[in-house]
């Protein structure tokens, strides 16, 4: 029997302060960078036009730009996309978006016409065109935020029923932590926030929640056994007991994510990046956010009845204001 990390007894939660420092620093870095420069939203959210063009001959980027400028489409982003014959043209300026309020296709039609004029009728093919009017983008943005909040609410209710409100709250706080770290990651990696990335974010939330639930499920079970130990110890024990499972599951999930990252192509890559980071942050938050928060909640609102009084009630009141780490020393 091949075993890794079997029967371990690491004191994970002891490091929660250091970990909190690291994660807060990371989130602040991300949010600070957001304050300086807003994130890159995709066409779907901002409105605008994206065209992926497959040229028959490698074109001169300068010529593409001057053709667009001549047509009054200024500041369009022209990027190579794969081979040197594939380019994306992105027109996302507010004025261009506004021009699409009358009909989303306007800018795309102009781009195609001026480039055909410049390079010849059959010099390129539009592999993909996305043109979104301003209203649609705003609705999508609102939809994405509503989706995330709603999934939080539903999770909170479900876990409150299956566990109890303390566990549910701790799990949701850990999951919201992942939203922030993932947004910071997106920003620091200069990834574009598209609908697919939002779907990735929600998948990360589901995955992270899974991980937290697996640990909490063990905590629930260990609490029922009624050992003479503090919640702090129970949490550590549960994390250690579920450690082999965590390693294995994260390994297989990561393997699938790597396959996506390297083999599924450009369109899926941002999604794969979000997922890869999500596995890391989800694992981290289950241990270093969910567990300390649960201890904190237990201390603040100790449970009154139950088979086993929670650890916090066993903790002397003089320690209530201290950190959970020191509470058991």
């Amino acid at each position, binding site marked *: *029997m091949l075993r*890794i990390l079997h029967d371990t007894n690491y004191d994970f939660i002891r490091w929660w302060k250091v970990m909190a420092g690291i994660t807060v620093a990371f989130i602040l870095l991300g949010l600070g960078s957001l304050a300086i420069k807003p994130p890159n939203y995709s066409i779907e959210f901002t409105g605008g036009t994206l065209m992926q063009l*497959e040229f028959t001959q490698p074109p001169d980027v300068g010529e593409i730009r001057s053709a667009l400028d001549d*047509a*009054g489409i200024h500041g369009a982003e022209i990027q190579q996309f794969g081979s040197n014959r594939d380019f994306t043209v992105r027109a996302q300026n507010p004025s261009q978006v506004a*021009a699409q309020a*009358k009909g989303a*296709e306007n800018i795309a*039609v*102009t781009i195609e016409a001026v480039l055909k004029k410049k390079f010849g009728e059959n010099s390129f093919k*539009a592999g*993909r*065109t*996305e043109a979104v*009017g301003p*209203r*649609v983008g705003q609705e*999508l943005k609102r939809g*994405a935020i*509503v*989706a995330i909040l*709603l*999934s939080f609410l*539903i*999770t909170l209710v*479900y876990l409150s029923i*299956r566990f109890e409100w303390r566990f549910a709250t701790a799990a949701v706080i850990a999951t919201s932590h992942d939203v922030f770290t993932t947004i910071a990651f997106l920003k620091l990696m200069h990834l574009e926030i598209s*609908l*697919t990335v*939002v*779907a990735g974010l*929600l*998948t990360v*939330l*589901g*995955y992270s*929640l*899974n991980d937290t*639930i*697996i640990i909490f*499920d063990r905590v629930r*079970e260990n609490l029922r056994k009624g050992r003479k130990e503090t919640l702090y110890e129970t949490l550590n024990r549960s994390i250690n007991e*579920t450690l*082999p*499972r965590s390693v294995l*599951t994260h390994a*297989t*999930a*990561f*393997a*699938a994510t*790597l*396959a996506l990252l390297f*083999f*599924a*192509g450009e*369109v*899926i890559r941002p999604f*794969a990046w979000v*997922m890869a980071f999500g596995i890391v942050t989800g694992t981290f938050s289950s241990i270093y956010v969910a567990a300390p928060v649960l201890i904190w909640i237990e201390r603040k609102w100790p449970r009154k009845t139950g088979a086993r009084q929670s650890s916090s009630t066993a903790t002397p009141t003089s320690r209530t204001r201290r950190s959970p780490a020191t509470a058991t020393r």
Partner: protein
Amino acid sequence: MNLKWRVSIILGLIAASVWALFPRTVVERVKRNGEFVYDTVRRVPLKRGLDLQGGMHLALEVDESKGAVPDKSKAIDNALKVVRNRIDEFGVSEPVVQKAGNDRIIVELPGIDDPRRAQDVVQKSAFLEFQITDKTQALEKALPRLDALLKNTKVAANAPTTGGKKDTTNAGLQSLFTADTSKKADTSRTDTTNAAAGTAGGPGAFSKLVRPGQMPGEYYVAQSDVELVTQYLSMPDVQAALPPAKVIRWSSDTLSYGGTIYRPLYVLDAKPIITGEFLTDAKPNTSPTEGNIVQFTMNNEGARRFRTETSRHIKDYMAIVLDQRVMGRPPIIQSAIGANGQITMGGKDLQAAQDLALVLRAGSLPVPLKIADVTQIGASLGKDSIHKGITAGIIAVALVVVIMLGYYRFSGALAVAALALYLLYTLAALAWFSAVLTLPGLAGFVLSIGIAVDANVLIFERIREELAHGKTVRTAIDEGFRHAMSAIVDSNVSTALTAAVLYQYGTGPVRGFAVTLLAGIAASMISAIFVVRTFYMLWLNRSREAQQALSI
């Protein structure tokens, strides 16, 4: 549960899945040599989204730039029928035409490789009117007033540049340039000082731009002045001064006269003698003398009205006005016309005639529609995405198999067998519910391969713990499954809830992702819990030594 029952259920599920996925012969519209025809094709019944097979997605909204529409929802309902008729006539395989929200129509056209034409067909209002040209010289009488009004007006006109944007060559481009002249600074060149601007205002500002044509109510305007005249005509003061009960319409054609290109302008009786609502059929045709034409037929009531009206207007000229443009030159009415008539297409090609016939048959749009968003994906790009997705999937499976076999040995092999069933069940579920497989959906599927084994991992780790506590193999397996259950159920249900939210709030590709996720969760629970358990039971029953030691 009885072992026989378990095995039968698993075999039954496999049979049902294989059946659901078995390539079958279906009749659908497919493209053969550039034409859409009904034909039988043999294919795996898995629907691919637009991003995987190429095609076009359109969201249409009521265009209120030419006047507010009071009840948008109702207008959209009416427009929906027309758009659906037109798409059906257009002949695309498995199109989607549906209302989204209160004020939007979603159109999805798989496999469309001429997006411009599709867009045109969907958007054209196709409002057909028959109007008699003005015989009273109303415009001539109004000219002094118009000239006086415009005498002091300076218009910063941006007449078309010498590049000659002959506006009928490209409908989309043209709509961009004529849609709103104030936006022109954005798109036209900056050399604004041109001849037309120089001629603006001054004495005879209007009358010098128009010259009488060859029939009553017809006038010629040089192509270079069309922009300026259009601007004049849109000025409120000018509109007030125009002859009452008359309308002014441009021709859809131009004509060349003495080296100059002119666009005819018609003054018409505002009240049409009849509109296109009585039309029952329209067919494209080519006539040797008139080029491409569209022949139409009216129903009985239309024919009756048409006959009455035309008999009152013998020797008058009748303009056929489509979407406020006069089609061809107004013919003279020789005698009463009944049920049949024709529209000449001028210099336009046969496809234009086909498209016009198509929109006339399908009826006119009750409100003008504008495009709120459009996505068009080439077929080759879609194929490429599928190919890459499958590659990633195979690699993901290979990696997961290596990890599971390396770590859990025999039990890992059971999990891998269950994973194979998981893949089968998920695809079958997608086919069964006619879910649409999109690119994010494909990514979600690949990702789910890595996550699907989680339930097995939980169970196996539990069994290991029970074995470590000195339990027998049989008990350890039973206890392992029992204890792992709550974690599996809770984690899967909460993921399913998130997926449901995604489904509710997502659109298109993201919705496909949510569906794949949901199908994956269900399949993984069946395969990890039920199937692997059965495998263990079979194995325990078969060999005695199995009861001594478990390779896990």
